[in-house]
């Protein structure tokens, strides 16, 4: 009731502006990009600044704003509520949006690793000094998750580690805790605050470089983590790379333009893409919602929403 009155009042006040601005199907003048929480805010803004410049030029927009949410849920709620236009989500984050409203966002692209694969792994990393080499050795130790809406940092370890250990993570480990994003999670294991941390990784290339992409790679590149002190103790089945999505309400023309813009970015500015995506990638490849059906099903079965 109240909502209708308020919406009505708003419609009246915006009539004047509506006469001058065009229809919703035209490209918006302001694009709001949500950036998933995971890495510290300064690094996220720095890495994505060039993306904002590219989008601004390609869309002819007046303004492209970057919103680094404190956690994954900030971006999820922003897309659902209509306060964010574009975001790159993880598969589980996309599933969260999809399960709440199937038509809220449309996935258009995902990243493609140097070998052409469009998937990555959740890997469990632990300090070498613990002297343990596989996940089954960690009974009664502590496990660090990244974010409750992360795929490789929560959903997949939650459902796949028990396949190796035989019991639920809550029972196998003495304690499991969310460390607030992938970067913090890896650092928690590196500093010995938890025994194993599960994070995203391409799983390709050399362990000494932190593999070709993912959180481990980012931290190695930054020099915050010395790979020779770590050991991989667990690896998940292949997880589909997260999608770049736009709010469906913005229309298909917006989606097409977005695909062009990202492909253009991959083709012309490899350095920018590597910063945005956190590692070496071949480019982007188109995706459909069906690509994430398995993750959506897993999320529905374990988390519910």
């Amino acid at each position, binding site marked *: 009731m109240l909502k209708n009155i308020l919406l009505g009042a708003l419609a009246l006040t915006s009539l004047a502006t509506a006469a001058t601005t065009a229809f919703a199907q035209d490209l918006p003048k302001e694009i709001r990009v949500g950036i998933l929480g995971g890495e510290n805010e300064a690094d996220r803004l720095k890495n994505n600044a060039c993306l904002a410049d590219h989008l601004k030029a390609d869309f002819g927009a007046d303004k492209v704003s970057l919103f680094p949410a404190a956690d994954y849920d900030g971006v999820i709620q922003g897309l659902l509520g209509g306060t964010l236009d574009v975001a790159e989500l993880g598969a589980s984050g996309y599933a969260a949006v999809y399960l709440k409203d199937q038509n809220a966002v449309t996935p258009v692209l995902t990243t493609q690793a140097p070998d052409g694969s469009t998937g990555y792994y959740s890997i469990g990393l632990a300090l070498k000094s613990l002297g343990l080499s596989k996940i089954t050795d960690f009974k009664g130790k502590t496990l660090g998750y990244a974010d409750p809406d992360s795929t490789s940092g929560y959903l997949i370890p939650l459902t796949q580690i028990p396949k190796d250990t035989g019991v639920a993570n809550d029972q196998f480990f003495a304690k499991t*805790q969310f460390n607030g994003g992938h970067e913090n999670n890896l650092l928690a294991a590196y500093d010995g605050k938890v025994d194993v941390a599960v994070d995203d990784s391409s799983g390709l290339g050399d362990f000494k470089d932190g593999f070709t992409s993912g959180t481990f790679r980012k931290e190695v590149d930054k020099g915050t983590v010395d790979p020779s002190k770590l050991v991989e103790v667990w690896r998940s089945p292949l997880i589909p790379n997260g999608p770049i999505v736009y709010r469906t309400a913005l229309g298909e023309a917006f989606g097409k333009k977005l695909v062009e813009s990202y492909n253009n970015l991959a083709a012309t500015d490899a350095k920018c893409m590597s910063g945005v995506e956190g590692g070496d990638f071949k480019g982007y490849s188109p995706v459909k919602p069906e690509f994430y059906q398995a993750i959506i099903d897993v999320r529905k*079965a374990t988390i519910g929403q």
Partner: protein
Amino acid sequence: MTSLSASPQQSSSADQVLREWQRLAMQRRLYSVLGVLLVLAGLVGSMWFADENNAGHFVERLPHLFDFLSWLIPSDWNDVWRALFDIASPQDNGTEQFNFPLGRVYLWADFYLPEYFYLMLVTINVALVSTIVGFIGGLGFCFIVARNYSPSNWLRIPIKRVMELFRAFPEIVIAGMFAAIISIGPVAAIIAIGIHCIGALTKLFYEVVENADMRPDEGLKAVGANWFERVRFGGLPQVLPDFLSYALLRLEINVRASTIIGAVGAVGIGQELKLSISRGFGAKTLALVLLLFVTIFIVDQFSAWLRRRLVGEQAFLKQGLGT
């Protein structure tokens, strides 16, 4: 005023004074209006700036104010009780949304503490321990910092500055700092709330001490009491009732602080609340909010009762009579 100035008998000098006064009054009024306008412009400007930097703008998002509440309504209201007491729900399909019995904390045999009660106890414990830390710290520092009792300016001023520093940082910032050192958990939360609490209580305490009656102190000085004896027998008896009042107030504040820190620091009920809100679990969220509400109510009532018992009924009667 106008009738006065219109009066023909008015001497020219009096007339001049009146006009001068009116001019000054007008000027002052103008300055007031200008000042108010300036503040308003600043306020509107800064709000506009804040709004521009938000992804959603205030006016256009206002109609969606209650969207948030729609998911809160559970499909079955009984699930709220089931979530609160960890009783299996008929809707349980193995998902996090309805896995109520999973969180049971078994104490012995079949007797269990429901998960949310356990988490609430952890939260209250954190608040309680940090209030005790704050009380001891405040008690220790306040007499050194109070002007009338301070043994030396060399001690008073540096300690006062340190206390300001303790108060300056919100608990959540200190918690973040300690989380980086000793990992997230109850200890980091206790240190964070405790440090802030020491700073806050020292300030409240020393202000009470500075208002104390100094005649007992003079008497004690006259008979040769040392500093500790003056504090113990001259100051403390006067100020202790107020100290306890403030400490109990602080306990209520600390329960809230501990809940909030829990949301980011994996301690107690805060994180569970944050997670269930972000997941859109109506029944769980309502159960948690209900538990929090009842807990805060009980803490408030308990501290009022305790204060009465400790301070004595006459303190309340005296205030009631307005003396």
